[in-house]
């Protein structure tokens, strides 16, 4: 699945991956690929601008460290990011359940 299909969902996926613990960009992309069993194989270079955007929005924070003589930026989920992730998880669950009901022609659940 390439970029176009992922549009709109990338932020949720990135927040979910970073929620397990601080990660640098390469590790985020590898984790995304691993968890999606290579389904989300998007151009790696486009993940970094998304990480920067999430940091600017206050959902992630980043720190620089030195690893093998190179500067490395590591991203951490902020408390604001954690609550945004919770909300986005819930709306994705609602949305995917609704789509599944439509695709499987199953009746919409009622509360009565």
């Amino acid at each position, binding site marked *: 699945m390439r*970029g176009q299909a*992922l*549009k709109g969902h*990338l932020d949720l996926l990135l927040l979910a991956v970073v929620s397990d613990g601080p990660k*640098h*960009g*390469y590790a985020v*992309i590898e984790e995304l690929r691993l968890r999606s069993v290579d389904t989300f194989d*998007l*151009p*790696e*270079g*486009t*993940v*970094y*601008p*998304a990480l*920067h*955007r999430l940091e*600017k*929005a206050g959902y992630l924070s980043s720190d620089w460290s030195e*690893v093998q003589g*190179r*500067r*490395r*930026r590591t991203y951490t989920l902020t408390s604001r990011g954690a609550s945004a992730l919770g909300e986005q998880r819930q709306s994705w669950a609602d949305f995917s359940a609704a789509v599944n009901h439509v695709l499987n022609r199953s009746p919409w659940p009622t509360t009565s």
Partner: protein
Amino acid sequence: MADHILIDRYLGELRRETRWLRDAEDIAEEVADHLLEAVEKRIDRGLDRMTAQKSALREFGDPALVGRAFASSRTGGAAMPTQFTRRAGYALIVSAFLWIAGNAIHFASFVADQTRPWEGLPQALYMIGALVLVAAGLLGASGVLGVNRRHGGSLGIRGRLGFWLFLVAGITVFATWFWGVWATALGLGAALIGWALIGSGIAPRSAGIFISSGGLLAAVGVWSLQLVRSEVSFDDPPAMLVHYAGILLFVIGEVVLGRWMANEEVVEEPGKMATV
């Protein structure tokens, strides 16, 4: 990275694509870390160094697209030159000439007033000068919008105040015949814009000129207010001299900043770029 010639070349292209962004060097270092790690993993899997680099770069994506994705990820727009900022540069230059023209016409009206009745040529000249100065203020304010955009939409409270003061400076020329009011507004606006420009990398010379002119204009504005309160003529020669010196310095600042913005190589608008 002598043994990573392809990655070096890629990072050079990426730096060129992102040179307008304030964190361009951080971006290059982050991408370098990613690419070198990707190459090491591929070499561990048995690829030779050159093939590993080609594979890692293919996975990372075209440097032009990646650079533009970085630019478009900035809230409020990237700090880069666009057609809008270029036009704003021209607006600042035209505004500078209008400030000079308007002040010259006003000065001519004061001179004519010495020998003729006010109702007639002096008054007509004064009104024409006021119209020209209003246009100068409006163009200056639109130039500030461009400066703000060129700064990545982040001049902040100083930029917003500067914009409104430029507008007030233009409009009050008509609202009051007392030049001390609009000179004060213009001076404070210029000082705020100059302050916002410090350390931004945007025409640093103009920042200093704006602050100096702002100080002069604001000082002479306050001085002229004092003259009015003590019922002394505010056309007092020393005050007028400082006023014109402040205006001259201010328009030099506008021209320096305007030329800098108008001559920049324009890049694509962030909104038109590919994003994920």
